[in-house]
């Protein structure tokens, strides 16, 4: 099964481990990810908060390319890219004037426009489909026994309602996957809280406070690590644990899945963490 793949800038920058582990997991499950040629950055928060035309045109351009390349399904691991591209698709289907206007502009610039036959989806949505979930179960060679984690979805994966493939306020997709992989997923109330990512440079102290709240809450829930599905959240939590009681590693769910599949080059992924996850994993004999 071939899927269109839109990694996004982070997965080529500070979240290369998310890129590598996602490709590894999908390959292990017999799904090939064909990268969208010449995709462009979705603009993220700066885009949508300062220019309505860019907020629509930048994500829409990727859909135009995907359609030109006949990629029926486009997988976007980064929650921010997924949110904006899915929103562009949603507004196109709703026929909003911004979408129509951007589509025409792109027709002149790119030679073709978007006509809505691409399904925008996220790895979590694909991996928690009934049959794929069972396949994940069969792939697990080394269950993550003893690894106590909490799942942190962040705010862009399930909000607003039209982008969400899961319960908007209490999503369960990552929990199912990680339980399938044998991890002990703890209960906590911060699944969809916002990490304040886009203010990490201009207002660092705010982000440090939020990170401290989240990390302390994770430990109070009995977790040794937080699992994320968004590179913005991961990098923020990983780099801003300045005043937390005890620093804990911030994984991508695909890394943990890869480890439970017994993937040999897990170490490559784990190298790219500020809070080093390797001691925790070795103490649980998972590496």
């Amino acid at each position, binding site marked *: 099964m071939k899927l269109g793949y839109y990694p996004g800038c982070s997965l080529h920058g500070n979240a290369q481990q998310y890129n590598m582990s996602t490709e590894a997991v999908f390959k292990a499950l017999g799904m090939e990810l064909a990268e969208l040629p010449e995709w462009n950055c979705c603009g993220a928060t700066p885009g949508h*908060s300062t220019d309505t035309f860019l907020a629509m045109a930048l994500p829409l351009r990727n859909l135009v390319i995907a359609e030109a390349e006949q990629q029926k399904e486009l997988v976007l691991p980064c929650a921010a890219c997924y949110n904006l591209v899915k929103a562009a698709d949603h507004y196109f289907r709703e026929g909003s004037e911004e979408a129509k206007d951007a589509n025409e502009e792109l027709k002149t610039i790119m030679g073709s426009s978007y006509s809505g036959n691409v399904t925008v989806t996220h790895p979590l949505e694909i991996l928690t489909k009934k049959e794929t979930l069972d396949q994940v179960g069969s792939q697990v060679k080394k269950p993550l026994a003893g690894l106590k984690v909490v799942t942190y979805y962040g705010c862009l994966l399930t909000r607003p309602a039209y982008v969400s493939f899961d319960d908007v306020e209490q999503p369960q997709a990552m929990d199912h996957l990680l339980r399938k992989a044998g991890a002990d997923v703890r209960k906590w109330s911060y699944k969809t809280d916002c990490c304040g990512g886009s203010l990490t440079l201009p207002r660092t102290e705010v982000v440090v406070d939020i990170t401290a709240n989240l990390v302390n809450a994770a430990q109070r829930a009995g977790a040794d690590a937080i699992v994320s599905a968004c590179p913005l959240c991961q990098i923020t939590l990983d780099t801003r644990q300045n005043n937390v009681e005890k620093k804990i590693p911030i994984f991508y769910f695909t890394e943990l899945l890869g480890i439970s599949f017994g993937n040999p080059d897990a170490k490559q992924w784990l*190298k790219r963490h500020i809070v080093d996850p390797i001691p925790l994993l070795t103490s649980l004999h998972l590496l």
Partner: protein
Amino acid sequence: MSTVKHTDHGTASSFSQAIQKKSHQNINDCYQCMKCAGGCPMNSVMEHNNYEILRFIQLGERDKVLDSNTPWLCVGCKTCAVRCPNGIDTGKIMDALKMESMAADRVPEKEYPIKLFCELFLKSMAGFPVIGGEGRLYDMGMVGLYKMCTATFFNDMALGMEMGKRGMMPLLPHNAMHRRKGEIKKIFQRAKEKKA
């Protein structure tokens, strides 16, 4: 206890109509239930609660809205949008207010770095003169420019080194555009023209 005047009558030219049209939100639906402020992650650092900004817009208090740092501290997490009993997406309203204050060149002084971050992010994504990188965010370039403009070289210095060491900060931008070279530049060009 700041005193406010009600000058806005929701006419086509009024400030409240402009914001409502730009953000596609019916601000009048709001019955000031304060739920959005209760759930907002940035509430503690905002000068005004977000529902107060909505009340200012209803009243037409344009200056109070543009002088407040609340729109700039909104990170667009849509907690308010999902839980508002009247279905108002306050995030979209705050975006519209950011654009309004940039257009009127009235960005509050102490929130200038946030505006700058947005501009540099988009500029770096449009590509750099010599080293290119059109269409993709070039972290090193963007952070470097941001540090230069805000003269904040020293904080996060250690963090920057650490990320470099771990291969999380590619040195050169990724030149991905071949057949579709120049499209992004055209898009940004159109954006500038539309703004004018």
